[in-house]
């Protein structure tokens, strides 16, 4: 006979085993959690360390995409605001832009759904500006291995930022940058743009096309700033045949040329036929191929106005000229006037296959200036210069070429620039609400 049971185990001893075993999961839980495969999660698929060297190329592509997106958007909205386009549908936002009654609450100016059909345009301009600035800053900080202030990427990014800021100066009455204050006037923004173009031009390794584009850009802002000597100097350095274009693609909707999309595709903007339809060369009856329009037999989607489409941007992949020798030449023509201007006009025509030449009826400088203005708008049709040009003509020559009425006959409100969006003012800690 044996004495069995738990005789030799104390009460505490009897508890240790089961309690210990039952606590194993609690002890195992933190250990399990410490195991990387359990608690580690994949980073958000769209998070990146943008400062790494391997991303410089991708960052440049991103900045290029941002610039192109900003550019076609700018052409659309500035075009509706000026005489290049008008709202052909009953689209409320476009109608308000057409009437130049856009206020600081306008959804057209800051729509968040950038990649949808209702693209705003305050944000795209700033995306282009910021992405280019970040690349420059990262290069300055040495974040990208092998990239320096003398690298071509630095020059290209600075040129991008210069153009983005130029468009902002052209379109907006005032601006702020990088989510911070202060509030800049258009003149101050032109100055910032000039600095960026100068920064690009100071880069030893600058590529030829970037240099020419930066010169065109700086010439444009200097013209806006009434630095005629500076503008003339820069423009004179640009090959008249030079052309740098933003490229688009029909592969994805996101890459579509928005000028085409709004004009041909969606049909909510039409070329303002009052300003551009039936233009001939010097009233000869010979159509001007630079502003050839097509009257779309299908009216706008909601039975608004007739739809005039620009042959110049006839597909989703049509490029848009960003900077050109043409513009440089017209800058020279505007400043120099006289015979030089006449010569430039005819040379520009020739480059576009136009054999008809023009000569002034007399020696009136205003006649030549007006011809320069007219030839410039035809040559640079839908190339993003009209908004700045109209503001300059009004300020400098007292020529108000903004449309006084919409095609429907409604009087426009007379604004010459977009007000700073309220969404920027309300969320930018450097600004104050009115």
């Amino acid at each position, binding site marked *: 006979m044996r004495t069995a049971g738990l005789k030799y185990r104390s009460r505490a001893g009897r508890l240790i085993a089961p309690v210990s075993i039952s606590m194993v999961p609690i002890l195992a839980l933190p250990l399990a959690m410490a195991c990387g495969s359990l608690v580690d999660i994949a980073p958000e698929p769209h998070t990146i360390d943008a400062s790494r060297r391997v991303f410089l190329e991708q960052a440049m592509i991103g900045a290029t995409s941002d610039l192109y997106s900003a550019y076609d958007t700018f052409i659309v909205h500035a075009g509706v605001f000026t005489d290049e386009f008008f709202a052909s549908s009953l689209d409320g936002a476009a109608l308000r832009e057409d009437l130049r009654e856009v206020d600081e609450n306008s959804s057209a100016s800051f729509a968040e759904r950038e990649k949808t059909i209702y693209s705003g345009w305050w*944000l795209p301009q700033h995306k282009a500006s910021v992405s280019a600035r970040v690349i420059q800053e990262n290069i300055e900080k040495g974040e990208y291995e092998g990239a320096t202030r003398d690298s071509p990427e630095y020059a290209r990014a600075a040129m991008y930022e210069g153009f983005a800021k130029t468009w902002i100066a052209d379109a907006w009455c005032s601006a702020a940058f990088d989510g911070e204050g202060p509030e800049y006037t258009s003149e101050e923004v032109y100055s910032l743009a000039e600095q960026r173009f100068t920064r690009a031009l100071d880069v030893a390794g600058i590529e030829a096309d970037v240099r020419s584009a930066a010169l065109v850009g700086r010439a444009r802002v200097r013209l806006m700033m009434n630095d005629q000597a500076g503008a003339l100097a820069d423009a004179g350095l640009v090959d008249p045949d030079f052309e740098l274009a933003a490229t688009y693609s029909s592969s994805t909707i996101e890459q579509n040329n928005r000028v085409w999309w709004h004009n041909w595709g969606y049909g909510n903007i039409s070329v303002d036929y009052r300003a551009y339809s039936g233009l001939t060369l010097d009233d000869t009856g010979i159509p001007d191929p630079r502003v050839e329009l097509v009257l779309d037999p299908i009216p706008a989607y909601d039975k608004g106005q007739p739809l005039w489409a620009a042959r110049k941007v006839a597909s989703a992949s049509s490029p848009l000229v960003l900077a050109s020798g043409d513009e440089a030449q017209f800058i020279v023509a505007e400043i120099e006037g006289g015979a030089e201007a006449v010569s430039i006009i005819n040379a520009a025509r020739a480059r576009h296959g136009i054999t008809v030449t023009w000569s002034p009826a007399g020696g009136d400088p205003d006649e030549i200036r007006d011809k320069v203005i007219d030839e410039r708008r035809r040559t640079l049709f839908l190339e993003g210069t009209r908004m700045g040009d109209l503001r300059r003509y009004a300020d400098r020559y007292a020529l108000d070429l903004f449309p006084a009425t919409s095609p429907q006959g409604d009087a426009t409100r007379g604004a010459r620039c977009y007000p700073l969006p309220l969404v920027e003012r309300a969320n930018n800690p450097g600004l104050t609400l009115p």
Partner: protein
Amino acid sequence: MMQSIVARLVGRSFTSAALAVLSLAPLTNASAQAAGSTYLLAQQSNYQRLDALTAGRTAAPTQLAMQVSLRRQHVPLQQALMEIASQAGMGLSYGEELAAARVSISIDVRNVSAATAFATAIRGTGWMLYVSPSGQAVVLRDAAGRSVVGTVSGSVVDAATGEGIAAVTVLVEGTGLGAATGSDGSFRIANVPEGVHTLAARRLGYAPFSTSVTVLANEEATVAIRLVRSAVQLDEVVVSVSASDTKRASIGTDIPRLDVEDKIAKAASSSSLSDVLHSSVPGVDVNLPSGQVGAASVIRIRGINSLTQGTTPLIYVDGVRVNNNTNAGPQSFDFGYNGSQSVSRFDDLNPSEIADIQVIKGPAATALYGSEAGVGVIAITTKRGANAGTQFTVQTEQSILQDVANYNDGYYPVPATTGVTDVNDPRIQPWRPVRNPVTGEIFARANPLMNEATRPFRIGWGQNYSVEGRGGGERTKFYFSTKYDDKEGTLPNNASRRLNLRANLDITPNEKLTISFSNGYVDSRILVPHNDHSALGMITNGSLSFPLYSYGVMPDGSRGDCLATVLFASSDSLCRVRQGNLSATFDKLATAHNEERLGRYIGSVTAKWQPIDWLSTRLAVGMDRVDTRTYQLVPLDPDRPFAQLSDGFITDGHATDRTYSIDYAASGTFALTEKLASVTTLGGQFFRKEYEEMGCTGSGFSSPTATACDASITFTGASGLAQSVERGGFLQQQFALNDAIFVTGALRVDDNSGFGEQVGSIWSPSANASVVLSRMSFWKFDRISNFRLRAGWGKAAQAPSPYAYARTYRPVRVESGGMQLSGFTMYAPGNPDLTAERKEEIEVGFDMGMFADRVTGTFTYFDQSTTGAIIYRRVAPSSGYEQTQAVNLGRLDNHGIEATISADVVATSNVLWNVTLSASTQHPIVASLGGQPPSNSIREGYAPGYLSSPVVASAERDADGKIVPGSVVMATPNIAGTDRVYIGTAHPTNEQSLASSATLFGRLRVSTTFSRAAGHYKSDGGIRYATPFSRSQHVSEMYALRQIMLSPEEQAALELGNAVNAFVFYDKGNFVRWRDLTVGYELPSAALAFVPGGISSAHLTVGGQNLHTWTAFRGLDPEIRDAGGSNSFGTSPYFTQPPARLFFVRLAFGI
């Protein structure tokens, strides 16, 4: 056989007799073995059986008369006997065999004799106590050598109706033996040890029952159990974080429990879990956004308690967290609008395989459920097996679904130039002409949705078939089910097919360990029609009808001529294309294909282990894997409206969503004193979610038979991966005094991968108390049979969505030289300080039962506040970021009440009529936006989703029905800083449901349910088209009819249009809906005697759902909305299909 004895010296009476027992010699010869130790003991020591002593046949030692008290749960028999012996001053001896047998008992005796206490303890255990004249006791096997088992059988019926009750758990206490009743209420438990036992019966909705039963060897004892209904289930075990059983009485928060099996039997179609839950639990809103088959319901507990993070509660199935997405499936192609119906993962589950649903409502109760549980938890328990003979239930349900909505007519102003100047002109009679009494204009009407010749609706046929079985033995129990459910919607491209399989297994290797396996699999295919805000919607196209291009309806119902032909002698070509619709015939729209295919597995293993008496542990490990394919195809068809849809469109997405759960808890139960008990629980959870998707989108086909992305002209592909991890642990301490006063405190710590980098763990404290006054000694109110006060406080959390904290970039492409170059651009700014929303709540209430629980009621008041509510803050666009930034800036308050009162209005032997009224209120309000600007749906001081608009206060019409210029007076705005007038809340602030169930003669049951929602306003985005809102396009034809349909103010608001942005169709959203009417009949046994196949029961149920709606709302239906199951605050429908009417018949057999 070696008979070894271990003796315990207890008290003072260790006598020579006991020593004699200790010295029992091994029984070595055959005769001695045959006689058994009992005989030997009696011969040698003059020990007497306890039952002989208590029967008075033999003089009992005086110690057996000593008064003792003992209350123990699940303790070894020897421990209980020792404690009794100790109190009585007796000695006790037992052998090793007793310890090895691991006999566990529960005992609760107060101030009884030691003899009674011994008898109670040893009853039914198969052991017997022998007591010597000196008071020494020894425990030996009872009646060794002969059979000692018998059988207990019987039936369980409703005490009021006599109706057999299915799924009642009948247990022989202290033996581990039991059975579940079959569909007729019968049960049978074999191998019950001889002796007197306590037989207990438990069933949700009935008061606990127990009775004594004497089991004789080889005989069958028959017991008739009559259960009394009771809604106050204080001893009911409810879901909790504790590893040991938690009774309702011990928790100070309201955790309602829905008996799904009973609900289906009484009132519901067994097809949709949302239907079953609808109007069943006060405070739980199950909104039906659409009448489409398979459309998701929005589920909210205690209303809106988050501004941005969704309000869908967490869902647990058998203890593991599962996918709770109510906004899944293909979305309608809708020109960028958000409106469309969705499908819900909640409805993947088969209601027939669910035993019950418990709802853990507010933060006071959910604080211990982790960092994502702040909005509430729905805990689903599937059916389990039972220790009984295998029982099968075979069931089929057939149903028809019918669209009963009254869609609006379309109007066409017949020009006088056609010569039609008389409304009775016979040429236009097929178009039900009507004259505008104000303007004199004549309108022809058409309604493609109501015209029998053109309407797209069909009678939707539904059918489901199921087989379930359950059974098992003492160690193993099983449950399985399979169900095939096939439903047609009333629209031709709406259908749902679902196959559910379930296999549950419980294994009890020994009395301390139970391992439960749960396995559920779903295979489904749902066709979701385009509707709502979709240009492809049949309701859309029919509602925006074009009468000029419609065929008339002749008096005999046949098709007449085309109106354009009648009036203008035009070709009927456009009538052929449109048949009165906006752009195309319904058959052109029906080719649009919108589908979700799903395979889903939910599995878990739960081990419950009680290694020692006071320690209970539970480990649950599980996963939920959802594989879906969402496929949306709009084939090339030039006749379809809108250019981009004519060209064709496709999206094809494959996604896998996995949720892993590990849940562990250990609870220690201690009797600190005789009256004070303590339960300490320590636990931890780990959850991991992974979502992977891959898909493509294409537009423009070159062939009508093209069905793939790469057959489209423009297509893009995308993939995505999202993961999240949540981990936490908690400590909970509960004290119980006299089983009447319970106080619980807990603290939980959580970490979640959704928190920003700068955020550490968060702490969630909670406390609650429950006082069962009716258990107190001073309680003398006999008419109030149960009364409990409860109160709870807690702070729970709701984590932000995964990666909301992260700064992200967006891929972009540039085409250069024919090459596609990829880069990235800034997207979302992120927020490293982002953390969970904190939800704090106080909840107080009571439960009561009156007149022997014939009238029962519950009441709860809650007051909750969400701080750090996540708001998506705009960032300055000049920063370059496209997206908003999630910040913890807001505060949302909410309070309300929930109450239920249930009464057996008539309770006779032949008739039981029960009426239950439930009511709840909610008053969510945005207390702060943290300085962020308001919007037209979220503003400080208003309910989330509030409605506002400029309002025309007065206007005048001239004789021609036109608004007099200058007569329009706008109402004074009452929302500061706006031109808007506050209209009201968009969501009901109070809801009620009335359920009535009458059982006649125990066989015939008639049940019906009404529900009501009120306190809110609602608009219908589509009704404007019945009373045209602008002069453009299709609505212009109906413009002049406003004068007879609208007030001058409404007409003025419409005509002012965008000038004042006034929207006029805000109506009170109040409604009363007659949800269902069900009649069930239990066939008598006599009738089944002639049925072959061993059918033990048969039940026939017929019913209808959505029978009538009373409302002043002018839209199609007061409950629907176009946002499907999404968590948006929008409540407006926009050509949304109203709920259809369902009739079903169900036949269930028990085998």
